[in-house]
């Protein structure tokens, strides 16, 4: 057995050495030999007996955590364990919006960290994640939204997040397909983040996976964690469908399945799993070069590089693990968007799906140590998971390596007992 392990190790070392850099030149060279020379993007090893760190969950957040553990903290004896296929959860089932125009300081900090890392991610990872800073605008369609976004713009200016409140004329200039003078909800302005945008969601997971593999980390797919081993209040390893694996530190980064893992580790989470809806239209020629969020009508809209109009909508209000949402949420989103973007009416819905998102009591994430020593949790991203991936990974890696991180300190589990919430849904109140 030991011998076999050593062999696996050798092979992986070998493939690390042969990992090819991606470039136009490399593509041209490979074209000459019909692409027969491309290596695997990441290795598929069997698990070793023990690691310094095990990350459970090979979605964007888990892989990013592993990547920054290696890159920023020199910890590379790491395994990332995945029940299914890497990037197969919410990383690959979201509307790919990236923005950091959040109101509260801790949110703005971690999302802006993420956004700025997206700017250079393709170069960092040598994998084109197609970050497209086409600009994100959040439409103000009521007086209270105007006030809310003016406040956000003020906060962002102090938080180092570049946003501005723009006029309806500027909105129209940036997004010609919008109907400004809707009889019901005229567009009164927008909060504009010029360097927000989108990225190719799968590529983010694949790029991190390739880079982690390149650093010698093991990404172990099709491996389900069935138990958490502990001794004297410290985590010692995990039981998996591919055997027991020991570790010194454990990071649980499994989004909607966090409750199940927490249960194994012996603590409870203020988290509920619910379905979030999204849909895309058939592809059309480019007609919109910005990302639109219309909160009054609960709709998010962008156009993918393929030409599909990507539409995100509301969440169900009940616990659900089926990855199927209820149709009426899609309906509500579509009818609202059609009013502000009349051209959508004559497009067709190509595909509709649901993702399971984990929602906390204040709708902000949890990046925290846990009652179990050496065990850390990263969950509760709700509908904001994709945009935060690199920031979340950066902060989580620091938290796991050093025990604390300015990016994550406000997102601890203790905040619920103390009443110290991070509530981004403020200013949504309608009164008078």
């Amino acid at each position, binding site marked *: 057995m030991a011998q076999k392990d050593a062999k696996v190790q050798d092979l992986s070392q070998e493939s690390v050495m042969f990992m090819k850099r991606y470039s136009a030149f490399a593509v041209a060279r490979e074209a000459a030999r019909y692409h027969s020379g491309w290596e695997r993007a990441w290795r598929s090893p069997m698990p070793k007996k023990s690691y310094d760190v095990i990350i459970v969950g090979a979605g964007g957040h888990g892989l990013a955590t592993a990547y920054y553990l290696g890159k920023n903290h020199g910890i590379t004896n790491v395994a990332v364990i995945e029940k299914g296929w890497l990037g197969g959860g919410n990383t690959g089932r979201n509307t790919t919006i990236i923005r950091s125009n959040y109101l509260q300081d801790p949110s703005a900090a971690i999302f802006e960290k993420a956004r700025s890392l997206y700017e250079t991610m393709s170069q960092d990872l040598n994998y084109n994640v197609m970050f497209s800073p086409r600009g994100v605008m959040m439409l103000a369609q009521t007086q209270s939204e105007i006030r809310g976004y003016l406040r956000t713009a003020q906060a962002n200016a102090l938080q*180092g997040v570049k946003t501005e409140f723009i006029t309806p004329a500027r909105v129209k200039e940036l997004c010609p397909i919008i109907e400004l003078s809707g009889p019901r909800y005229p567009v009164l302005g927008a909060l504009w983040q010029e360097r927000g945008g989108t990225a190719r969601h799968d590529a983010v997971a694949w790029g991190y996976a390739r880079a982690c593999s390149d650093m010698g980390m093991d990404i172990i797919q099709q491996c389900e964690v069935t138990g958490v081993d502990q001794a004297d209040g410290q985590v010692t390893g995990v039981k998996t469908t591919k055997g027991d694996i020991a570790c010194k530190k454990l990071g649980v980064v499994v989004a909607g399945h966090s409750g199940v893992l927490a249960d194994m580790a012996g603590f409870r989470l203020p988290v509920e799993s619910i379905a979030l809806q999204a849909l895309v239209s058939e592809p059309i020629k480019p007609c919109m070069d910005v990302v639109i969020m219309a909160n009054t009508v609960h709709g998010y809209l962008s156009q993918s590089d393929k030409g599909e109009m990507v539409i995100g909508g509301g969440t169900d209000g009940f616990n659900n693990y089926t990855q199927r949402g209820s149709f009426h949420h899609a309906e509500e989103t579509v009818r609202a968007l059609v009013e502000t973007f*009349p051209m959508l009416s004559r497009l067709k819905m190509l595909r509709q799906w649901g993702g399971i998102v984990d929602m906390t009591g204040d709708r902000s994430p949890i990046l925290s140590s846990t009652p179990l020593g050496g065990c850390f949790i990263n969950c509760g991203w709700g509908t904001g998971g994709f945009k935060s991936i690199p920031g979340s990974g950066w902060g989580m890696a620091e938290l796991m390596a050093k025990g604390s991180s300015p990016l994550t300190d406000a997102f601890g589990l203790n905040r619920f007992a103390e009443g110290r919430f991070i509530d981004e849904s403020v200013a949504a109140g309608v009164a008078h």
Partner: protein
Amino acid sequence: MSTRLPNAGRLIDASKQIEFSFNGKRLKGYEGDTLASALLANDQMLVGRSFKYHRPRGIVASGAEEPNALMNMGEGGQFEPNQRATTTELFDGLAAKSQNHWPSLDFDVGAINTHLARFLPAGFYYKMFIHPRPFWKHVYEPIIRKSAGLGRAPKDRDQDRYEHFYTFVDVLVVGGGVAGLQAALAAGQSGANVLLIEQTADWGGRAQVDGGEVDGKPVADWIASTLKALDDLPNVTRRDRLMGAGVYDHGYALGYERVNDHTPSNAGPRHRLWRIRAKQIVTATGAIERPLSFAGNDIPGVMLASAVRDYAVNFGVSVGDRTVVVTNNDDAYLTAIAMKNAGLDVPAILDARASANGDLVQQAIDMGIRLEFGRAIAAVKGGKRVTGVKVCAQIGEGAVLSEIDCEVVAMSGGWSPVVHLWSHCGGKLNWDVEQQMFRPDATRPPTSHDGEAMVTVAGIANGYLDLNNVLQDADQAGKNAAKAAGSKPKTAKAPTASEATISPMEPVWLMPQGAPIKKRMKAWLDFQNDVKVSDVQLAAQEGYESVEHTKRYTTLGMATDQGKLSNINGLAVLSKALNADIPQVGTTTFRPPYTPISMGAIAGEARGKVFQPLRRTPIHDWNMANGADPEPVGQWHRPFAYVEQGETVHEAVNREVLNTRQNLGLLDASTLGKIIVKGPDAGKFLDMMYTNMMSSLKPGKCRYGLVCTENGFLMDDGVVARIDDDTYLCHTTTGGADRIHAHMEEWLQTEWWDWKVYTANVTEQFAQIAVVGPNARKVLEKLGGMDVSKEALPFMTWADGIIGGFDCRAYRISFSGELSYEIAVPASQGQAFWDALIEAGQEFGVMPYGTETLHILRAEKGFIMIGDESDGTVIPQDLNLQWAISKKKEDFLGKRAQLRSHMADPDRWKLVGLETLDGSVLPDGAYVVADGTNANGQRNMIGRVTSTYYSATLDRGIAMGLVLHGPDRMGEVLDIPKTDGTIIKTRIVDPVIYDKDGEKQNV
């Protein structure tokens, strides 16, 4: 040359010619044509360009699976991209344009990509365009985006309308082919309430083309008599042009009815979206033929074998004089036979199998058709249309044995059951090795609310390819569904069809078997998205092993046909590359809808004036007719200000403020919530709801109260009036009316259900008008009827009476600091009462005022506004409202929460007034800063502005805000930066800046 045959097809009415246009060219078709059949009849082989390489594309299929023939259709408000020609019924004046090319379909500059194909394999963009960094956004991405996409984006507002329709049935049968008809009949005869839907306008499905005999009669006769039998059953409804689009949880199915797509000038909705609740769903959705993968299989003229005979039989269209059939199964022989029967030439059937001896094979031999076994296509000749094929052995690497000239290649790689609807809600599949197809696993069905199976699959969709088995299976499915839905099936026997001998098909995933890379790079799997065999193999080579990875890496099956033709072939290629069995590699998830459905239909009737309910007060119309600038508040439109001619909104507000302070203002306050709370425990209950003590309020009196969430945060506020010992009337904010009523009912029903309290939301029973200003009493006295003097109706009391002949309830409350009455009259008299006030008020300088004036007046008095001073993170203590929090009460909602460490923290920001040193108006939402930055490099903040206005009364800016240790720092000057970084020096002051002693409201 593609032409119309002398004998028009079964769906064509040759007496009714129709004119249409394609790319501006005027063409003729017949009633009954699809756009696709009409184009083929006019020899239009080239219909579009592919997504990535801009390869010439022709029609491949005859139904919903068509990947290529997508058109821009219509003009102006009826323009729509990506219309599938094979499912578009031809109508007079139809105008179609092909997509994805420039400058023209025949000469497309983008076709250069096809020569670069070698450099653009699967996932090439992940490996390229990485440097220099700004180039992705500004150079590469725009080029990729421009060449991607398909149809043109619509520009105009949709001129058609749409609607929804709800129905509840015992059994929904999806699909009007033989299986669907028999299933519906069996279920209907059992007494179940049945809805049978068919996506086309034609009943009978493939059997109408492929023939056969049922109970000794031609199948067409059986179809006709079954339709009649169904129509005779009162409990069965059948609808055509109605597609089963999706199956959702608990028996919810979506139906997409194309009511007027084929008659666009008719009145009525274009589409109707059916929301069907079915106890049981039978999907008899047939199967889709698979293409074969060989070099050049994307050249126009290479078509599915079944489509070639569909066009001949249904539409009388010959796609070409000479058709080479290439197959791995018996079914494609039907095409050869149909071509021969139509008088066309079939130079050869190339059968990849070593041998076959089924009935159809024998029939082909009998007809003298040349059969070549063990053969494959080495390459298709031609560019924009097929000119011939090069033939090779299936075993081997493709050495050319012969060449055959032809115009059409009819290919068949076997059939894939349409299992989409089965799978939408979790039905699982098994791989059938013999037939090489995924079939529904009846032991793992989608389940409904009761945990029982809710979908049954019938006929070909269930994997039964021959007519007799289809009938038996469908009959059983119909009976089972009826039984599961609560009916008693009859024991009637299913009709029978003669059994045919079929020789087994043989899996052929690549032609020839050992095709070298140059051939694999020309063997298409996904025609629309340009995914080839070599792409899937590359994905496997690079470790994208899961089918989901491969799909996403190569874009296989992600096109508008959602992989109807490509998924299984791609999966098979992947599994070969991974040396794994197909079921091990898995299948992908099927997501609704089955084929794309219009957003218009999803939005339904909700557009224009019925987009959303607009709530109206009894005075709404008057408001809008008198200059109200509408402000959406919830679903109401409240007047922001009443703007007079020649005035800006800002000027209107200033006028309203001054007039109300100096003369008389009227506010339509009807939107404020009014909730009756009654019962012996009403006082006890309100003591829990409000932070104040309400049980001690005396009848006839009013008290301002605060409502908190159980989490401690301020939720709503308003004046509570005690009507009698048992009865209170609680005013809420406009947005709070429904919310607070629901909040009360929730606690009453789920926590204190033994308390004797009833509530009723009577918000809309009354029009409520605030009569405000020094002249308020005068106007009421002029109208006369009740004593509204200080003595009879002191501040914070209420009384019932008559004013100006109107039954009313008058509340002596003020949110402005002025002498003020809020008068409630029945809503039916609201407008009349308002008119009376306006008329009587003329001599007192009456003017209506809007919400902005309301805001300014209250801000001058330091009154908080829910939604401004509170935002869901603020507790009453932050707003110095301790006086409204009872210390005597043991408990109220939010009390425990407010004791938590962070809420009791003395460093919480607290409410103060803010006064700029230069008198300017502070920006909305501005923050107060301190020196330095926090650990994340963000500027330290110590407060924020919650309300800021220009006060016409004081002729300067006024504001309130929350500031760290604010109330202890009166007089201190703070720094408040604007977004441009400049600082506004601002002094901390008392929030009450107008009439500090409250003399004006208490006269």
